[in-house]
């Protein structure tokens, strides 16, 4: 029974949602199911917040490595939660947007979260540079092709690419580096990406069918199926 009920729900909802796409009168039903999904999705935030607190309180109580950072995380979490829930410093009333200009929530977001997030992402630039120096080496034929393509794309993304090949006449414009970069993206890259997408699509269809028909049961915690 513990297995039959979830299997039946999966089969019922899955089949209904597929039918709702193909049968117009059932369109509304599909929409309502999606709304249920959206409501459930909101609860994921409670779960996420709860899990974050659980993990960090545990780390704090057991004084695990770098436990001091957990204090910052927990304090930051509650501080932002309070700023958002009670709309501290909001220029409007309680009904106004939580991100209204001048609110404490938006001030912290703009002055702390935005620069920190951008900094973390910007650090990637250093590692990309170091990795390209080490990895892009013409060790064999495949690596050489990759190297040449990367070189053209990199150059094509800068105004230097245009400057270097601006003398090439329009009749031979394909040889201009920016156009060459676009050609690589539109032909070789496109073919590869499309193949991957079709593969993923087929995989999704097959996995969905396995779930609906009850062949795939790992989501129930059953590894034997």
């Amino acid at each position, binding site marked *: 029974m513990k297995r039959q009920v979830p299997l039946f729900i999966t089969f019922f909802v899955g089949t209904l949602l597929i039918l709702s796409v193909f049968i117009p009168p059932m369109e509304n039903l599909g929409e309502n199911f999606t*709304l249920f999904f959206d409501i459930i999705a909101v609860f994921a935030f409670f779960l996420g917040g709860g899990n974050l607190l659980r993990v960090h309180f545990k780390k704090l109580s057991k004084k695990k490595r770098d436990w001091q950072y957990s204090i910052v995380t927990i304090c930051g979490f509650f501080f932002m939660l309070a700023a958002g829930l009670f709309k501290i410093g909001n220029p409007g009333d309680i009904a106004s*947007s939580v991100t209204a200009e001048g609110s404490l929530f938006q001030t912290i977001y703009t002055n702390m979260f935005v620069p920190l997030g951008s900094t973390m992402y910007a650090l990637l630039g250093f590692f990309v540079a170091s990795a390209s*120096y080490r990895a892009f*080496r013409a060790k064999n034929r495949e690596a050489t092709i990759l190297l040449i393509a990367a070189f053209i794309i*990199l150059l094509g993304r800068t105004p230097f690419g245009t400057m270097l090949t601006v003398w090439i006449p329009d009749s031979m414009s394909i040889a201009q580096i920016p156009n060459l970069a*676009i050609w690589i993206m539109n032909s070789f890259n496109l073919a590869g990406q499309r193949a991957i*997408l079709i593969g993923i699509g087929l995989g999704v269809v097959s996995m969905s069918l396995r779930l609906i028909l009850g062949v795939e049961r790992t989501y129930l915690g059953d590894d034997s199926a």
Partner: protein
Amino acid sequence: MTVHNSLILPLVTFHDVGMVVSLLAIAAGLIWLFIRSLKGMEVDRRIIFLFIFAAVAAPLLFPFTFSEKATPVVKALFNKVESLPPGSHVLLSYDFDPAMAPEVQPMANAFTRHCLEKGHKVIYMCLFATGQGQFEETMRDVIAPEFPDKVDGVDYVNLGYKAGNEGVLNVIVTDFEKMFPTDVNTVPYDSIEVFKGIKSCKDLDLIISIGGGRPGIKEWVLFVGDQADVPIATGVAAVVAPQLYPYYPKQLLGLLGGIKGAAEYESELVRNYPRFKDSPTPGLKMMGPQTLAHMVIMSFIVIGNIIFFTQRRRERKS
């Protein structure tokens, strides 16, 4: 006036000198590494980091900009916004977080500038919780200072964030009000003028998703563009752009990739609307650091290969 000139002139000279000195320093350093590489000497990781830092910092401290020309993928989107009659409904979805913002926020601001200048009705929403905060950046930097006469609810509206990823799209493709009964300021859907004659995404004239993560443009194409037959375009981080080429030009009418895409759109906007000549153009400004960083990376690729071949030749000899 004379006083101003005498103050500005040395500053301009200082910038020029600073830029030339920085470029010379970077070039000299690279030549030194190049000579070392001929002897087969590897470059320490920290030296690479130092060069990248210099390549990014120098153009930020002593800015220099390049003129950009819109490529067909960017031009297609610009022309679409341009060709829509005033009063058309354009949806801008802020599907990004602060990490992606340096690359895509300039696009979001440029789209807003273009749409409001053309007199389109702009609907803002986001599939990322952080998108709502990013919209406030547009509000502060573009709408409030450059379009003070535009009224919230009449010329534009912000619907904010709703959880559910593609689930949100699956509903708004047939009914906006079901998912967004009010805007972000709790104004009821029925009393928002922007939504007059708009029931679902099917009634929109253009949708632009800005971001690069998930949920993002792929979900917009799959759940809205294909189903509702609405023109969709996107502006994404450079790293994501290659994955979207299979959708262009049928499912995506235009595609802006990274800072380069933003810079191309901004340059096209300034070219067509001289009013924006003095408006901030972060995309164009950031092309300086990006160009120099790319040149440094390419130099290191060359140096790395010289070292590789030198070492291999030595190994063969020995």
